[in-house]
């Protein structure tokens, strides 16, 4: 078994109203960042897990996302990396 650190990005699904993102976008505009077109606020989760190999670590985090970490109705997720520790 090796220890892996797996990072996941969870974001509101495109097309679903994201008032938090809109509020941040408005604040950025008032700070002078007029070129900002869109902001989405999501979550970044780091899972430290034991696994036999990277593939297994990724597969188990994939299942975690589907079952708990992301809401399948409203959120998308992307597993960024699985780094050996």
């Amino acid at each position, binding site marked *: 078994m090796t220890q892996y650190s797996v990072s996941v990005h969870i974001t509101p699904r495109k097309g679903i109203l994201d*008032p938090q993102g809109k*509020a941040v976008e408005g604040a950025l505009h008032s700070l002078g960042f007029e070129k900002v077109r869109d902001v989405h606020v999501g979550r970044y989760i780091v899972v430290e897990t034991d696994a036999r190999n990277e593939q297994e670590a990724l597969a188990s985090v994939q299942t975690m996302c589907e079952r708990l970490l992301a809401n399948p*109705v409203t959120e998308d997720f992307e597993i960024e990396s699985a780094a050996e520790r």
Partner: protein
Amino acid sequence: MKFGIVTFPGSNCDYDAYRAVVDSFGEEAVYIWHKDHDLQDSDVIILPGGFSYGDYLRPGAIARFSPVMQEVIGHARRGAPVLGICNGFQIACEAGLLPGALLRNESLQFVSAPVTLRVENADSIFTSAYEKGQLLTVPIAHGDGRYTADAATLETLESSDRILFRYTDEAGKLSPSANPNGSMNAIAGIVSAEGNVLGMMPHPERALDSKLGSADGRALFESVLERVAA
């Protein structure tokens, strides 16, 4: 009739629900700790409001894995009534007992206020003591009440009359300003396909006495008492 009220760590409307059942209707109620597996022969399960597990991750996301939820899901699968109020609605959605999800209010504000609801379907076990189109005043108190579902789910809810309550203005008209959280189709409460699981963001258990603002929640409990006993 016996009501089982589930207490999760962070529930804060379990006591309101208990008092509603016992004091206002003289029925029996028991608290069920979320780690228990015994529903104590309850006829109706109430998933009360609050902030189970501090709303960590998403409201209801962790509570759904509490041991008692296996039994609550079994109770629902047997066709027995489950009433999810506020956080209970969020938990019921996370547990897959109801479709959709409750997201952060469009205003990003926690809203604690009486709102107007329109009864959309008075044939359910939860609404038979109301009239279709009746307007109710019931309080809400939530920060994550924006009902959201995909287009196909909304279509199914609409065409099968599973939306029991909608937010309207005092004249019974739909309007964005009368929708306190930005819910799709102004949805305040829905039932499962079998009609035995109700999820609603407003608090009928806090609207049982006109001296305290409104008694419009009474008919919901009366409906359950009449229809479930029958």
